[in-house]
């Protein structure tokens, strides 16, 4: 059975797919072994023209196009979920509806709190439905892991798979920064910075839809 929350998120993904070209950037900067800052950026500026046109419509190709008020409502829901999560502070979501750039920043006390915050947002936006919950990140014993999204996730949805071609040009980038130097990375596509304390992984969304493990990474720290 399809969850309404999942359908909503699916429709957002489809809207993104209609605008085709967007950039998702996931940045986590650890200030010590426990706490740090997360920055999530969604930059749809390249598709501004299409989004300008789409935002004037109620539906397109049978899909409901959320208007600014609806998107703003969801952002406030997410903001409230984050603010109400223990161990999360300095939450901010900047939104630029002219250039379609949205940036979420928050500080977290531990990776556990970060996972809980992401699950809380997922639950809140998913209309309190029973969405699967994950610990997307683990960080212990000098090892940081970014898990792949499991098989029953949205991105694995057959509808999205069929539309993979529409995501051409869209990219997802992950940047993780640590106070310690990086010893090894499991994902061969990942690059280690010159200082040795940051890892970047960039992939096309189109490929990510077909192979969710492309974004998974296990980073061993010194």
């Amino acid at each position, binding site marked *: 059975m399809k969850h309404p929350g999942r359908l909503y998120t699916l429709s957002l993904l489809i809207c993104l*797919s209609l605008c*085709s070209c967007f*950039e998702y*950037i996931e*940045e986590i900067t650890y200030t010590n072994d426990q706490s740090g800052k997360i920055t999530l950026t969604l*930059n749809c*500026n*390249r598709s*501004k*023209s*299409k989004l*300008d046109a789409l935002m004037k419509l109620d539906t397109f*190709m*049978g899909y409901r196009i959320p208007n600014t008020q609806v998107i703003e409502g969801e952002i406030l829901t997410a903001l409230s979920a984050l603010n109400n999560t223990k161990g999360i502070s300095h939450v901010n979501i900047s939104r630029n509806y002219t*250039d379609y*750039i949205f940036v979420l920043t928050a500080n977290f006390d531990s990776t556990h709190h970060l996972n809980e915050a992401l699950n809380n947002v997922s639950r809140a936006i998913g209309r309190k439905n029973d969405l699967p919950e994950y610990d997307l990140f683990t960080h212990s014993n000098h090892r940081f892991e970014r898990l792949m999204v499991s098989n029953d996730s949205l991105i694995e949805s057959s509808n999205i798979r*069929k*539309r993979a*071609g*529409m995501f*051409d*040009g869209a990219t997802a980038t992950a*940047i993780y*920064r640590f106070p310690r130097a990086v010893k090894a990375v499991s994902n061969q596509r990942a690059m280690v*910075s*010159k*200082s040795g*304390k*940051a*890892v*970047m992984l960039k992939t096309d969304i189109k490929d990510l839809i077909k192979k969710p493990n492309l974004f998974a990474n296990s980073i061993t720290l010194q």
Partner: protein
Amino acid sequence: MKKIILIFSLMLLTFSGNAQNLYEYIPENTTMLISMRMKQLDVKSKGQDYKTFLRDLVEPYTYSNESRIVSVKSVFMNVDSFGIASDQEIYKFRQVIGDLSGYMFLFKVNDLQKFEKSITSGKWSRYPHDYDYAVSTPYMATEEMIADTVYENTETTVALENTELIEPNYVVERVNDGKLYIAKEQVIGVFSDHVFIFNLSNSYKFYRNLVEDDNDDNDYSYNSWEDYKDSVYFAELRAYRQKTDSLMYVRLNTKKEEDYQSLSREYADVETGILERARKRASVRKMEKQKKQLSALTEFMKNNLSKPVNHIGKNRNFLSVHNANNDFMYFSQFTDMLLAELRSEFSNRRYNNSKTFKTFPIDLISEATTLLTLNFNNGVAEIGSVANINSRFQERLKEALDVKFDKNLFKYIEKENLMGYIAYRSDNLKMAELYKDVYVQTFNHITNGIYADGTTGFELAWNFIDKEKLFNTFGGGAIFAVTGFSDVSVNVVSYDYDEDFNRTEKVETRVEKQPKVVYVTTVNNHKNAKDIIDILSRFSFVQKVNENILVIPSQYNFRTELYIVLTKSVLLITNDKDLALKNSSGLPSSKIMESSEQKFITSHMIACRTFTEKTLNNVRNNYFSNGGYERWYNPMFNALGNFELYTDLTATGTQGRARLILKDSSENSLSKIIELMFMMK
């Protein structure tokens, strides 16, 4: 022999009695009528659920739906279950009987027993009763009370949810040759040769005149403090609270350990009982009021429901289209409909009490009728329109449209990537004068001249306007066309990363595709046009290319440069830079739109055509060059041909046609369109 002749005559009489047309039950003065042939549509749709797209047309949702016996939507979505003769026409029309008005559905049924059994089974009354006034009102009142008494409302809400509802309730009344099923907002008539469902949309005046208002809401709910204070409920509640307050005071002060919250809940349970009694009283009063209303409505319907002497079949405009076996037909007595709608806007007491009532004629738009037909034939879906107007309006319209289309305009429409266009011709000045007269006449007529001084003032102001400059500088003819796609430069924000993956924002310029649009119209007065261009050039956001060419740079949401070009004969507005700067005197004749298209434009008052194949290909190539179009492109490309629309002047008005042509001329257009609509849904 005489007996045989008598029997034969009786048979003939019986036969002619049954063979009468259903539309004879529709009064001639109905303002709006829709007819549809469902069996025909069933066959053409090849079993696909086309009715899904008709739901709101059949019966839009209103609050009064809740007090109806059946939902008309559910009836027409399940014609077989109701025994309706879908091979015959089904009519929906505006019906007015005295103070009652609404929409009447008229049809024949194959099986009267089946129909009656279906409506009395109750299973087709599909409106949820959650919205029932009886429930919502006490709930709101309860919230008021809660705010007042600080009691928790859990128990109270549960009690209200179990409220026994009295709607829908109806009476059955036998009349001459049939039966009437009467509910507060719906009357169903079941007769041997026809059945009707009359959904009342305006019954306020009827009930206000026939049933006295017994203020049944002024018990536990209230419109004013005075009403509430006088209610039995308030008296009981006040007495009870005085008592419980004293008891609570004693208990709280003698047994210090008592919890105030649980004590409050204990008393709240009893208070809920007071509310319950009040609710029952209101329920009984509501039942009594409803009985009175139903009895009045029954009496009224018995006395006033009769076959109209003048039926719609006497209207030749209606009959000529009706007999053409259309899938759908829409007929409106436009003037009556418009005036009825507008009058209702001015029908409140302030206007009615005015002493300056006067009759103002509406000689221009009187007797106007509109007919629309929709037919799904093999290879083409076609909408036809016929508007009949009176000779005075016709004469003025003819004058306003007596303009030759300026062939110079074709020079600006490039044929190579032409995706679609709309062209029209008219004398703007004469058209504006005509509209002004219609507006003034109609306004004075519907307001009975209350604002006659205002409209006279408007006419005075109109007299001072330089109409030549306003309406006649440009005009005569115009074309708006989409002629392909052009490249435009846009700035986009992206990110760069340094060697430690710290990001910096960068702005880069990239090329995007934008539709090329062209609007070109005739210049009637070059001096006036030049004055306008000179004034426009002084705006800060406008750049002057030369004396006759202006450009508005891209800004805000408008990501393309817009050129305004004035030549001796035309005004051109376009985002096609080449056309504006290099071809301002027109394209070479080898590049301009096909002569067949030119002929199509010059031979109609309004002409529009879209080239589906070219449009789909252009959209695919420019916006979906990397894929993602397969789902919609192939089915649409394989099915759809061009779309065209045109309107012409006739001896009695105007007539128009809109045609969606399919590539496969052997396939029925309804089944194909429904298939595409489901695919896109």
